[in-house]
């Protein structure tokens, strides 16, 4: 076991009572098992195939502060609030690190919907939470084991049968403060049969300190339910983020996951999608725009367990300066999962010599009546297209920006929230023009 894991194990063992006191029994019940798993596996480093190019244990190595006593760090939530999607009518939840802040004038949600902090839900509906909490997360991954061992709070969403929430739900997660800080956040989302929800989660960092976000989302999508999950990150070079989403899909369900990294430090995103019921459909896409020394590592695992499921994967990277991009996409088609259709595409633009891309698509297929394909490319902007534009009077820099924006468009087009789509287009364009850092609400450049 590596030293990085040791400090958290010690921390938990010494302060166990404090952790338990400020969490709910349902969450406390899993601590021992998670701790044992963490002791056994440690935090993943490059010796593990899935983490070949990013030493995630190093993310955890510094001594961050953990808010085990749940001290309220925010007096006025409005002060730190920041949202980059204007005109978006959404039901908003604001997280300061790992604590859900009370929202003024919350919008009404349909009857039966539970949307609150995980701790609150675990105390009010212990059976419901216990039925799902920890059922999807895989403890063999050290980062998830650590999250489970330390988790005290997070967000809980329950949508009853055949209920549609029209307005998107938005989680705004803000990392701020003068001290280095580690946020341990847990999302538990349960959609009963026929429910429909769109969830937008935005991670922002406001201050210059060293921050680490450890997030585990467990998402259960019932029969014929429709769920959109937009996972946006816009943070700083000093921010480390390890996020895992475990998604279980019942028959006929439809899930869209879109992970967009516009600015970050070092990020590792895991997306595990398990297609458990017949006819389930998944669209998993992602995009990363990285420069400087940013590292963005996306790991996806789509597990086709049932027949007639469809999965469609599209990931695009634009890398500049000394940025590193990693894409590891695994598709497993189990025996009996006949009539599966699984497509995966990964396209990458490298703009400098120092920018590195590691891409590793994997197909593991144990059924014969399937259509599976993957394609991966690494290349540059099309010289012919550049020439064409320049011959029509568009300056080279402008032409490059246009082509890069166009390159990312098909990932943005997957978004099913119009306002967000529009805003993302603008943000990406700003990003390519190098003006994104100066956006409203950011305290860093002021």
């Amino acid at each position, binding site marked *: 076991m590596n030293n990085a894991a040791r400090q958290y194990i010690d921390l938990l063992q010494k302060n166990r009572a404090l952790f338990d006191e400020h969490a709910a029994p349902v969450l406390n019940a899993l601590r021992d098992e998670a701790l044992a798993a963490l002791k056994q596996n440690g935090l993943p480093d490059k010796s593990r195939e899935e983490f070949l190019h990013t030493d995630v244990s190093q993310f955890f190595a510094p001594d961050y502060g953990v808010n085990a006593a749940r001290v309220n760090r925010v007096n006025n939530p409005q002060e730190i609030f920041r949202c980059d999607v204007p005109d978006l009518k959404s039901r908003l939840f604001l997280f300061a690190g790992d604590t859900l802040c009370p929202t003024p004038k919350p919008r009404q949600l349909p009857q039966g919907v539970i949307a609150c902090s995980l701790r609150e839900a675990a105390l009010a509906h212990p059976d419901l939470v216990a039925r799902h909490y920890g059922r999807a997360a895989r403890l063999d991954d050290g980062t998830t084991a650590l999250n489970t061992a330390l988790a005290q709070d997070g967000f809980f969403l329950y949508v009853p049968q055949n209920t549609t929430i029209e307005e998107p739900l938005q989680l705004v997660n803000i990392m701020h403060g003068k001290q280095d800080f580690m946020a341990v956040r847990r999302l538990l989302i349960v959609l009963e049969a026929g429910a429909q929800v769109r969830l937008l989660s935005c991670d922002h960092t406001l201050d210059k300190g060293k921050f680490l976000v450890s997030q585990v989302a467990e998402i259960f999508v019932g029969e014929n339910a429709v769920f959109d999950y937009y996972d946006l990150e816009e943070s700083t070079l000093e921010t480390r983020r390890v996020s895992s989403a475990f998604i279980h899909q019942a028959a006929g369900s439809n899930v869209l996951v879109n992970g967009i990294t516009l600015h970050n430090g070092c990020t590792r995103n895991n997306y595990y999608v398990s297609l458990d019921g017949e006819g389930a459909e998944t669209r998993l896409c992602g995009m990363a725009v990285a420069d400087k020394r940013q590292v963005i590592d996306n790991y996806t695992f789509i597990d086709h367990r049932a027949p007639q499921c469809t999965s469609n994967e599209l990931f695009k990277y634009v890398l500049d300066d000394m940025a590193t991009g990693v894409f590891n996409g695994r598709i497993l088609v189990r025996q009996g999962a*006949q009539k599966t259709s699984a497509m995966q595409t990964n396209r990458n633009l490298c703009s400098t*010599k120092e920018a*590195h891309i590691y891409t590793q698509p994997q197909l593991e297929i*144990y059924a*014969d009546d399937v259509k599976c394909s*993957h*394609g*991966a*490319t*690494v290349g540059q902007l099309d010289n012919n297209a550049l020439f064409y534009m320049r011959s029509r009077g568009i300056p080279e820099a402008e032409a490059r920006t246009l082509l890069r924006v166009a390159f990312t468009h098909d990932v943005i087009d997957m978004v099913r929230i119009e306002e967000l789509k529009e805003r993302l287009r603008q943000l990406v364009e700003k990003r390519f023009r190098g003006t994104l850092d100066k956006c409203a609400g950011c305290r860093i450049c002021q």
Partner: protein
Amino acid sequence: MDMKKENDSTHKILSDSQNDAGTSEKIIQEVTSSDYKYGFVTDIETDIIPTGLNEEVVRLISEKKGEPEWLLDFRLKAFAHWKTLEMPHWAHLDIPDIDYQAISYYAAPKKKESPKSLDDIDPELRSTFNKLGISLEEQMKLSGIAVDAVMDSVSVKTTFKEKLAELGVIFCSFSEAVKDYPDLVRQYLGSVVSYRDNFFAALNSAVFSDGSFVYIPKGVRCPMELSTYFRINAANTGQFERTLIVADDDSYVSYLEGCTAPMRDENQLHAAIVEIRAHERAEVKYSTVQNWYPGDKEGRGGIYNFVTKRGLCKGDHSKISWTQVETGSAITWKYPSCILAGDNSTGEFYSVAVTNNRQQADTGTKMIHLGKNTRSTIVSKGISAGYSQNSYRGLVRVSPDADNARNYTQCDSLLLSDHCGAHTFPYMDIKNDTAVVEHEATTSKINEDQIFYCNQRGISTEEAVGLIVNGYAKEVMNKLPMEFAVEAQKLLQITLEGSVG
């Protein structure tokens, strides 16, 4: 391996999902009952040393072969390093534990003296070759291929040696090369695959028994295709041959390697090393048709084929091309690779891997782009049937200095039953912004429309499947030299007999 367990459980639940086409059921039945065509044992007196591996054995092998001191040193260093290593387990293979102490590391056909002409060769041995369809006489008279037949590790007879000698081409067994051209061997041995490279390379470097050595001098275009036939004959012996091919400036050679093994109960280990070195503007084409014994229907017996093959495009404008047709072996685990060090050098890899019954294959290639304007092409076709597992694993690495590198990779898998598996694990590490790298992979079963179309025109399903599979593999088969292409095509059909025509 936990994936396997999970898989088994789903298999239990879903095993009744029937293949709708009744004919393919029948066809699969026929496949599984088809026998290994090359399963016969030749009674030749062999000189086998006792099983086990220790420093004494390494010294004994070296002594039996009358090797110079430096080669013994090389072996001992390799053995010392091997002892520090553990067998790797990352491959998508289910490998039973191998007891390295239960293997005999040397088996040579007993011979008083080396043969002077064909008449000196043991008639038994010659009839073995005849059964294999590579009678030396025929080969010499008709096809003009120079054959270096390696049977259980010691080269028996190399044909056409004199004719090649006129051009300065050296084509002989490795032991002869050690005796006759020690400087060349010493210079290049281990220069592409170091004994520190991996577990099996270290093992081979310690105990290799024989193999082939080829040297093509400057500016020579080798007039004939050089061919070696490997065959594992004695039970419980591992075959550890070593091939070293050096193509000097502006030379060209095409090298063929064919492998078969008789039917045996115990698994036999085959851990070979092939090293290729291409100098300025040299071109080497290396073709393999591998048909070691794959084990019976239940997966008993068969060869473990764990081979390290690597080519170094040392000079500018050099080219190395690997073509392989893998139909045999219980477990195939190899990645013929190219290190493209010279500017404008080219690497190619064409592969057809067929697995049936309980066979397992984890094979592919590595293309390491180091020089500028280097190009590589990878075409891999996997066909899995029965309960077999077939994986493609490949690496394309473009280093920061390899400006304008270009790679194209295509790997397709064809599935012929609902119990088999086809997997692709490509790795792309790109560290240069001028690189253009493309990868495509598809997995599917045979298109029913195509079969229907053939049926409609009076072609039986069996024949139709044969046609489709042959068409599917054509791209690779076309890269084989003529003499081999015919044999490879036959092999493809025998391996999948019934199911694919």
